[in-house]
């Protein structure tokens, strides 16, 4: 029972972006995933990518209200990585049936679908932000991603006062929204 509690605590920590929880999860699971990827045609970079992707999927799951842990974390992480890696191999046309499958796995199809949708949305937002140009991009990033307030932002960007910075932020926001929805609605 105690182990279950710690697993729950770890997930809660992950959901809050707590570095101790992330470190523990990393230490517990990374080597297993790295070994799996390396043994199945992958490189160290692939291992890092796939593992971090799985951690993000786990993070998304941990953050959602409906989240229930139905398996051990390492089984879940392994299953996600295995699925993601198989997909990647298929995409580059190097699919082999010989992929190791001695570990226990759980069904993760649905979670991966959700994760991929999130990824697509992330990419749209990222592209929209990057095509804004400066200082719009940094201004909006400062406000929405780094969660700085207008006072700090006006100081950082050299606006004479917070109101001007705010005004500029809204102008940028309107442009970003246009860019985002143009892509987002195509994607739907």
């Amino acid at each position: 029972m105690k182990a279950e509690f710690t697993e729950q605590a770890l997930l809660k920590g992950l959901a809050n972006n707590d570095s101790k929880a992330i470190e523990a999860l990393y230490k517990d699971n990374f080597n297993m995933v790295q070994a799996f990827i390396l043994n199945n045609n992958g490189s160290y970079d692939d291992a890092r990518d796939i593992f971090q992707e799985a951690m993000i999927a786990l993070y998304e799951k941990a953050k959602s209200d409906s989240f229930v842990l139905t398996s051990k974390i390492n089984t879940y992480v392994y299953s996600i990585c295995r699925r993601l890696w198989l997909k990647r191999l298929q995409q580059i046309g190097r699919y082999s049936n010989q992929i190791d499958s001695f570990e226990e796995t759980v069904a993760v199809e649905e979670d991966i679908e959700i994760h991929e949708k999130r990824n697509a949305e992330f990419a749209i937002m990222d592209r929209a932000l990057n095509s804004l140009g400066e200082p719009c991009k940094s201004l909006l990033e400062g406000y929405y991603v780094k969660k700085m307030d207008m006072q700090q932002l006006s100081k950082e960007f050299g606006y004479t006062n917070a109101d001007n910075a705010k005004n500029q932020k809204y102008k940028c926001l309107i442009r970003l929204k246009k860019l985002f929805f143009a892509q987002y609605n195509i994607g739907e």
Partner: protein
Amino acid sequence: MEDILLLQAIERYLDGTMLPAKKAYFEELRKNTPEIDQMVVEHNMFLHQMDIYSDQRNIKHALHEMHSRLIERGDINEGGELSTKGRVIQLYNKYKKVTAIAASVGGVIALVISGLTLYLSPASNNQIQELKREVEVVKRNQQYQGAKLKEVDSKLPKDAVLTGGGSGFLIDAKGYIITNAHVLKGSSFANVINNNHDEFKAKIIYRDEVRDLAILKIDDEDFTALKSLPYGFRKSDLDLGEEVFTLGYPRNDITYNKGDLSAKTGFNGDSTRWQLEMNANPGNSGGPVLDKNGEVIGVLSTREKQAEGVAFAIKSKNIFKLIDEVKDSDTSVQKIKIVSHSSIKGMDRSNQIKQMENCVFLVQAFNKK
């Protein structure tokens, strides 16, 4: 400018920082103006996306930092100084495909060349000789035996025609004998004779022409199964120069020959065979080849015609493989148990031979007229 004010109002409304009085007014406005209502919904959705986006960016950043930190501390590693093995695997994976292609191209070329060589060199087929006894010799010997043994006639059907012969030996004390498939070529039944000139009827239960091995089962009420075999079967590899010996029937009496292992492959690099420096004669085919501990290392099968004293034996590994393969389909083979322990280890040669000579048989193959 108006857009900005509106957006500002919407954002305040959504994040709950709008003053209550203004909020009531704004809600009224929302209700009455579908465009504004739509803008609120849209912006809410956008902000939600923005939230997810920033969360993702932050967690990605955190994971990245953690990765670098753990590498720095050596908790994980990516094939730096710590693990050279990783790099080898990586290189291996990288070049696996290329290597495979190169190997198969090489393989095809090798096949073509060996095919051409075979095709172009006229006399190549006659370079090795199977060591089965020629029919005439066997026949003559059979008559000789006939004089000696009263039973010969009774045990053979009247219309039996001798097709060939060689040696064979027990692989299981219950009466299973292994010999060469070429010894039994063209025959439908066989009998076996031990060194005391006792003759037993035997059934051919399996032949593998490719491996050149065949299994016989003694099917005769006069035969009493042995408790156990004196010799075992060796699974491990041999070293060049190891002393080996064989027992067989190039004549009607059991004959001992000794030699050395001279190569780990047979004629033309055949990896299923050993090459032996040994004088083997027609009739030795199917006899056991044993190492000094009395462990069977192979089945003597052929010799090279153009060289003196070069014989080839089918590696004992092939016996295991054969039995494994036919076990599933053939129930009679299932009963065969091969032991690796040799109980004549450490004895001197003449005692070893004494212990095992009743396990080596003269095999005669027959067909009906």
